[in-house]
């Protein structure tokens, strides 16, 4: 019997046997792609920031260690950029192939953000090429440093504009006529306001939080690498470069963790008002409450009831109160919405994990700050260095966890419906503009493409780390430092405490 089946039926049987439908497969693949892609993005963002800071310090203080650091990191950034570009192309194509119906709507309504991102991407690519490949062509080194701002701006703006579309997916208010789109079964797209994609209710809070989280995760990954190298290295000169990197990254870590806390609080309070359905599930609120809502630590929903949580009386209302934008006091609950619109309750646990790890990292950085204020040499404390390595893993995990929480929180919809001030969708009975199932491709080829995607990232992510480590591993420290001396015009080694010869003495 099987012999008579064509390939299509065979594959369908196989998928059904595994319990995987096409929309689920499409979603899983795209979630996997983004999860992998943002690792590269986070590290790229952090590298661009560290390079600009390091070169500034190098020029200002004529410090060759910071100069060597900026140079090596810039080459690693080229590698990240190359892989990021390939991954970005992969994602752009994947969006088109896996989500054709979704992309049709995005193309007609929200594509301007992607388009602006292309220009940011061009700024990034051209300035990066100039920065790295024509390093020696600049007579005035400050002009070279200015080019690094182009890289910093390009990387940042690219990430910002892409995440912008995600914010639009959460609250697409006023960017097109949703009522007409829904009543026509998705065939009529009218009343388009292309600029609205840049200013949706969730745009500011979401981008602020995601941005801070990406910079943090990337910086912590770099910090972990330099801390590991510092612990392993026996070369004093190399250790000085690692130490320079750790100084910059520690400062970023301390500032950023504070900003993450602030932005996270703003983000959750915004969700309460503009995405009440998602908020209700994130907080595991079964029923709406006007005051004294408890915080639920962990727990699940089983058979329509929340179970296995630890309640903290009144805490949720207390946390939400200052930033609920005029909706003070009201805490939404899941019972206001049909159960088919509920996202998987596991997102409540992933949110708690994210907040818990955030607090843990905040505590660590608080201790580091106190030690610094006490004038302690933290880089000679082994437990701190091991802590830095731990930060690398924890920072990345927490960012991924947060991203997963935000995205799965939108299930079963790919584009949510805007909500009114009463916490109800603006079009009664419709809780989303487009479901995942409506958006996904049903082409048989997505199955094979998905396998290619899995393999691609399984290979490319370890290779990215390998490439970076290979480039950052200063095999010939003296050559690098000599080049740095030449770049900075440090001509008289006898008088310069930073020179290679001085180091050898």
């Amino acid at each position, binding site marked *: 019997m099987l012999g008579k089946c064509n390939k299509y039926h065979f594959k369908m049987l196989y998928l059904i046997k595994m319990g995987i439908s096409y929309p689920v497969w499409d979603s899983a693949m795209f979630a996997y792609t983004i999860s992998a892609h943002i690792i590269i993005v986070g590290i790229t963002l952090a590298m661009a920031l560290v390079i600009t800071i390091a070169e500034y310090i190098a020029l200002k203080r004529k410090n060759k260690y910071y100069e060597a650091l900026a140079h090596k990191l810039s080459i690693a950034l080229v590698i990240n950029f*190359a*892989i990021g570009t390939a991954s970005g192309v992969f994602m752009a*194509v994947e969006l088109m192939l896996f989500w054709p119906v979704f992309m049709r709507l995005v193309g007609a309504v929200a594509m301007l953000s*992607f388009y602006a991102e292309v220009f940011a991407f061009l700024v990034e690519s051209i*300035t990066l090429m100039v920065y790295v490949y024509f390093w020696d062509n600049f007579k005035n080194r400050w002009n070279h440093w200015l080019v690094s701002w182009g890289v910093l701006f390009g990387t940042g703006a690219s990430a910002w504009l892409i995440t912008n579309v995600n914010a639009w997916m959460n609250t697409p208010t006023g960017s097109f006529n949703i009522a007409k789109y829904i009543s026509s079964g998705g065939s009529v*797209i009218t009343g388009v306001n292309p600029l609205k994609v840049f200013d949706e209710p969730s745009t500011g809070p979401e981008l602020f939080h995601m941005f801070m989280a990406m910079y943090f995760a990337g910086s912590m990954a770099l910090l972990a690498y330099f801390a590991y190298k510092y612990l392993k290295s026996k070369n004093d000169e190399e250790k000085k470069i690692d130490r320079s990197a750790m100084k910059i990254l520690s400062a970023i870590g301390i500032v950023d963790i504070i900003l993450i806390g602030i932005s996270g609080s703003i983000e959750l309070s915004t969700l309460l008002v503009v995405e009440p359905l998602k908020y209700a599930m994130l907080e595991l609120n079964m029923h709406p409450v006007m005051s004294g809502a408890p915080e639920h630590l962990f727990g699940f929903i089983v058979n329509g009831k929340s179970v296995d949580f630890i309640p903290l009386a009144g805490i949720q209302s207390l946390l939400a109160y200052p930033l609920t934008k005029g909706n003070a006091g009201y805490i939404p609950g899941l019972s206001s919405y049909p159960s088919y619109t509920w996202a998987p309750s596991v997102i409540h646990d992933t949110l708690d994990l994210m907040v818990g790890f955030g607090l843990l990292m905040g505590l660590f950085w608080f201790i580091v700050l106190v030690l610094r204020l006490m004038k302690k040499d933290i880089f000679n404390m082994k437990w701190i260095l091991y802590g830095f390595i731990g930060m690398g893993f924890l920072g990345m995990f927490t960012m991924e966890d947060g991203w997963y929480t935000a995205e799965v929180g939108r299930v079963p919809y790919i584009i949510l419906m805007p909500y009114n001030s009463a916490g109800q969708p603006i079009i009664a009975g419709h809780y989303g503009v487009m479901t995942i199932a409506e958006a996904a*491709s049903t082409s048989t080829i997505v199955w094979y493409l998905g396998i290619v995607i899995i393999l691609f990232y399984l290979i490319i992510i370890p290779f990215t780390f390998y490439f970076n480590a290979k480039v950052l591993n200063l095999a010939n420290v003296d050559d690098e430092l000599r080049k740095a001396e030449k770049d900075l015009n440090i001509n008289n080694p006898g008088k310069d405490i930073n020179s290679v010869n001085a180091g050898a003495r």
Partner: protein
Amino acid sequence: MSFSYLNADGVFLKIVIAAMVTFLFSEFIAVFPIFSNYEKHKTVVLKHIVPIWEITGTMIVFFVVELELIYSGLTPIASYLFIPVIGTFVALLILRNVAIIYAEFIWKKVDSRPLMMFYSGATFLMVIGFATAVAALLIGNSVSTAIPSLPPLLHLNTVNLSKSYVDYTALLTSPVYSAVYWEFLFGTLFIAYGMSQVFYRLAKRTSWVPLLTIIFGLFLNVNAWNVVATLAGAKFVGYYMVLPVIITLAVPLLYMAKSTTHLASYKPFWFVAVTISVLFLELPITRIAGNAYSINAFASPNSMQAANFWLSIIGGILFLLLMVMYAFVYNSGKLSFNPEKIEKNKQEMPK
């Protein structure tokens, strides 16, 4: 003729495609020096490729996004029709990026020849794949109005898009299609060879090889493109081809003249010249799928077209300024059309 944002956006898209094709083409033609004598030519080839290959990747993204923005209705159709060819294209792009990264940064002490050959081979296949997909999109459809007797190339099922596919076998084997396809492909190869001699300065100034190969390539290409564009429903194709032909011939001729040799191989000049040529080949194309559909039938809403127009103006100026900066730094901060002189001055500068 009144101004239309959609028409202006269409021209922008064609400029983006022309620029992307030029970037890709400049890497594509490196296949000849890399495969013929890598050791001899590697300095001149790498000097161009190494700072540019990333920008080519960016241009590809630029093209995809611009296409999705202007003709959003085309996205689902293109998605289902070209899924295998797009997948292969992206896989090759990734592999070639990895190869050049290894050659440039990782295996510095190892012979870079096999890696660069791999890079070049992958780029070559990417271009061939792209050209094949474009040919299929332009000339063939199951409801072709051009020549109804021709076999269908695009099997478009608008009710169930997942049943749509492109019949590449028909493109490569059917008498009319295949004749045009292979003619165009070989014509391009001859032009590419001639251009590589000029662009990478491989041939002697007095050599007739670049000019003759380009003339032969043009002979094939002019006819092939005329058929392709006409099958796609384009009008006045011959008129639009005049400028590309003049430019393509001018490049080797300028190279042969003593006073303009440097100009012909001057990268910014070459890029502008080739971009204009490709743009003029594209300009008459307003319909696709064997004249079955007007490309404007897939356009995004009016407000999006207007927004795209203005953002394109701003972004275009930004891009132009960036490229001027690039050219300025590339020439060590000197505005000159003589790269050799710049190089010489650089070497003579006191250390």
